[in-house]
């Protein structure tokens, strides 16, 4: 979740959506994102909306913002969602717990939040229920409790197999721990397991990166996400780089690492299905993230969480205390929202679908953009075969230049 909230229109206190947002809802899948805004400590590169115990104390948060009562607070928003969506009959197809560190809460709390969704909306029979987890914050018993509570998928923040890289990232786990987590999760009965990796950390070599990929693969997950390190302004990492304590990140190096990832993961039988995501099989793809990329509906609950229902996007207040206070007063915690125009939605579709292995249909493009697509084929950025079949699909080089292609195709 990005640090800054966009500017938007105000959200009514009831949280009520424009009627247009609910039109045709039955045809769209519905998912839930549940944000847990707590971490044991803040990592040097992180600018997410998350809080450590000491940060919350500094902010003199009232008791309602506490970790202990968080599950109950969040349940309030899910009940608000029920009211706002009215007699919408859709069950939740996916539920995704992100953070922060969801697994910093007791497993029962996570299960309780999931239960609230189940009670209010019911879960589809094959619902995908994921939580993010930090390798150091789970135990076999914890994992078993999640599995028993209905969780089907778990995503570990492994980041790297190298101690020196983990140190720069301020990650507290030791190398080897994430791989053991995968085994423990398998033992607990999780079918789908993801490892998150970060490449391009200052001090990381190509070989370090290969070692991280190999270690991740050897643990046997069915999904790997790999992100280039983004140095966000205002983070400790940005300050260290500015002071010259660490070398700056390098885009060309990032490109090399991406190619290494594609090569290594491909050799291990993984296929990319989104620019930063690889899956061992089509069944292993993250269905929740797919909702984001295909313009489906999701309700994001929790401080700073973003939601999208039928062309209305909104986002909650960022601070846990303000969030809890709004819900306690019976108000929507929404901080702002925007209603997308048809053109906005067209642009978003190109912007999001082009990042997928299936690409986007050429019929979304204007005449000028179709000519740009032909040029992109000539330049080796779009795959000629699907292009002939009416779809713009990025080549490997095109994936690395996806934003440039998106600019050309949204003209």
């Amino acid at each position: 979740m990005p640090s800054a909230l966009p500017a938007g229109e105000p959200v009514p206190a009831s949280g009520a959506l424009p009627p247009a947002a609910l039109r045709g809802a039955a045809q769209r899948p519905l998912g839930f994102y549940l944000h847990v805004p707590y971490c044991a400590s803040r990592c040097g590169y992180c600018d997410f909306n998350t809080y450590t115990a000491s940060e919350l104390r500094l902010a003199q948060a009232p008791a309602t913002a506490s970790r202990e009562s968080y599950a109950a607070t969040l349940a309030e928003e899910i009940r608000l969602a029920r009211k706002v969506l009215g007699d919408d009959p859709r069950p939740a197809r996916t539920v995704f717990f992100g953070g922060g560190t969801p697994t910093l809460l007791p497993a029962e709390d996570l299960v309780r939040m999931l239960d609230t969704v189940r009670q209010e909306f019911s879960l589809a029979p094959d619902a995908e229920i994921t939580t993010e987890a930090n390798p150091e914050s789970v135990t076999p018993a914890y994992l078993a409790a999640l599995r028993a509570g209905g969780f089907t998928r778990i995503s570990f923040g492994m980041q790297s197999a190298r101690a020196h890289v983990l140190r720069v990232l301020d990650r507290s786990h030791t190398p080897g721990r994430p791989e053991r987590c995968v085994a423990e999760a398998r033992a607990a009965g999780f079918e789908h397991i993801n490892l998150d990796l970060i490449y391009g950390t200052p001090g990381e070599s190509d070989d370090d990166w290969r070692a991280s990929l190999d270690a991740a693969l050897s643990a046997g997950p069915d999904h790997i996400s790999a992100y280039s390190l983004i140095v966000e302004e205002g983070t400790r990492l940005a300050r260290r780089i500015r002071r010259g304590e660490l070398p700056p990140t390098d885009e060309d190096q990032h490109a090399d690492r991406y190619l290494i990832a594609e090569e290594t993961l491909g050799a291990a039988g993984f296929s990319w299905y989104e620019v930063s995501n690889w899956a061992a099989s089509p069944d292993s793809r993250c269905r929740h993230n797919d909702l984001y990329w295909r313009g489906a509906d999701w309700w994001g609950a929790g401080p700073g969480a973003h939601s999208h229902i039928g062309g209305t996007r909104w986002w909650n207040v960022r601070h846990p205390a303000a969030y809890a206070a709004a819900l306690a007063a019976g108000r929507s915690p929404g901080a702002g929202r925007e209603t997308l125009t048809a053109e906005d939605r067209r642009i978003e579709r190109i912007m999001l679908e082009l990042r997928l292995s299936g690409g986007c249909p050429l019929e979304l493009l204007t005449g000028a953009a179709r000519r740009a697509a032909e040029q992109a084929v000539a330049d080796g950025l779009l795959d000629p075969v699907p292009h002939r079949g009416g779809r713009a699909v990025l080549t490997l080089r095109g994936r690395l230049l996806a934003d440039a292609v998106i600019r050309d195709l949204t003209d």
Partner: protein
Amino acid sequence: MPATTLSNAPEPSRTDPAVIRNFCIIAHIDHGKSTLADRMLQLTEVVDKRQMREQYLDRMDIERERGITIKSQAVRMPWEAEGTPYILNMIDTPGHVDFTYEVSRSLAACEGCVLLVDAAQGIEAQTLANLYLAMENDLTIVPVLNKIDLPAAQPEKFAAELAHLIGCEPEDVLRVSAKTGEGVPGLLDQVVKLVPPPVGNPDAPARAMIFDSVYDAYRGVVTYVKVVDGRLGRRERIQMMSTGATHELLEIGTNSPEMSAADGLAVGEVGYLITGVKDVRQSRVGDTVTTQHRGATEALGGYKDPKPMVFSGLYPLDGSQYPDLREALDKLQLNDAALVYEPETSAALGFGFRVGFLGLLHLEVIRERLEREFGLSLIATAPNVVYRVIMEDHSEHVVTNPSEFPVGKIAEVHEPVVRATLIAPSEYVGAIMELCQSRRGAMRGMDYLSEERVELRYTLPLAEIVFDFFDALKSKTRGYASLDYEPTGEQTADLVKVDILLHGDKVDAFSAIVHKDKAYAYGVKMAAKLKELIPRQQFEVPIQAAVGARVIARETVRAMRKDVLSKCYGGDISRKRKLLEKQKEGKKRMKMVGRVEVPQEAFIAALSSDSGPGEGKGKK
């Protein structure tokens, strides 16, 4: 308090030439000319204390801020000396190298000049050049050291320097402080005593020389003249002798210093005319005014059409401002007969104008006024001079834009040259000689003004000065050298056009005409500069410098390899879409050179030399 004041002074059109003294002040920027003029206005009581403001005569903001006087004016001041009422006409001269011709016309309206030199600094090149002009015009020189109140003043030393230059005794050099007023009354007395009165034939047909012409939004063109022969009266029809155009004289008068109407102007008098014309090109500096009825048949000598020496392409940053730029140039031209322009299209910069200027300062002043007074944001191509290219088939091309340099068999290329005067402390002589030599200069002479200060005279190609001569001179002499130059003709030279190609496409705005021996250095420098300025594209972009088909330098902007946001999940979408919109806006502001997107900032940075031509300026 002088007994002669405005109220009892001889009146315009009824003043005996014998009591008229026409003079100007020649001084370097910052040597105190405007302050001295202020003191004179006060002493002669044409401006009272209450109305006095600093640099009274420098009207325009831009002049005031830069301390440069661009448009001259004439002020009629009464002054009594030894019981006789006199009329002093102080004619203000433009103070810069670009306006040499206008200076020469102002000088031609005078019989004497005050040579004003800072007693702490000594004479500068520009002053020296104007002094030579004054001497060529047979003006009586009244040497004056200013700022004698300064602790750093060295009046003995610089009095000797001035005496040496004009051939007088050091004791004859007056010493004043324009700031405190010390010595200024004595200076006015000396002007009366030394400067000869104007001489003319009162009975001959009227002939008046235009020495300045200013457009005023309310009154139209105000023309400043000195009557040489005869008389101009109000309500007469006058004729411009260069064009034969006739005009009704709506008003005639003098400035003290505000305009004040009179019955007419007689022999030796200086004043203004208003005819209702709206464009200074109809009332040109140097032209002779006569009466339509029984007018003169022979004009006074010395008239020249203003000839632009330096050209630059001016383009609005925002293409939609093109009509505004045209309108602004039209307006500036009303007041500037030397400003010429014609529409031009650049593949790289879009629609703009090729604008001709008298010199670099003129360019800088016009550009600044376009930006400041008309709110335009401009890209200016590197200034260039005018080349005359003779082909082997004897056809001739006049090239004002390097990208239009002809291709094919060229017999010879002519370039303008200038006579340059440089003054510097003697320790920098070596550095200056080295610089001038590297700029294809030919030494014409060298004189020691004093033990420590040397005057060097060179013939230099104007193109070399236009390039970045001021900056180089400044850095080689730690700012202690001053420079003046004046066009003297042209020479043939071994010149070639260097083109810059981006991804194989010629960028017209970067083409330059340079000496064959410097083509390589120019190409290497431009290619390296552009490599730093052009962002990486989706493909590799070769930057080449070429003379004809021959590539003389090459750099490569490597292809961008990664341009993708790594994470794009639910909360990122709004931000990402907004970023995309912003990037697309930014893309619209890019200039396309073939398929290469070049940010405007890159053009601006590539086209500007390390510091603008406005710097230096012979100023210490």
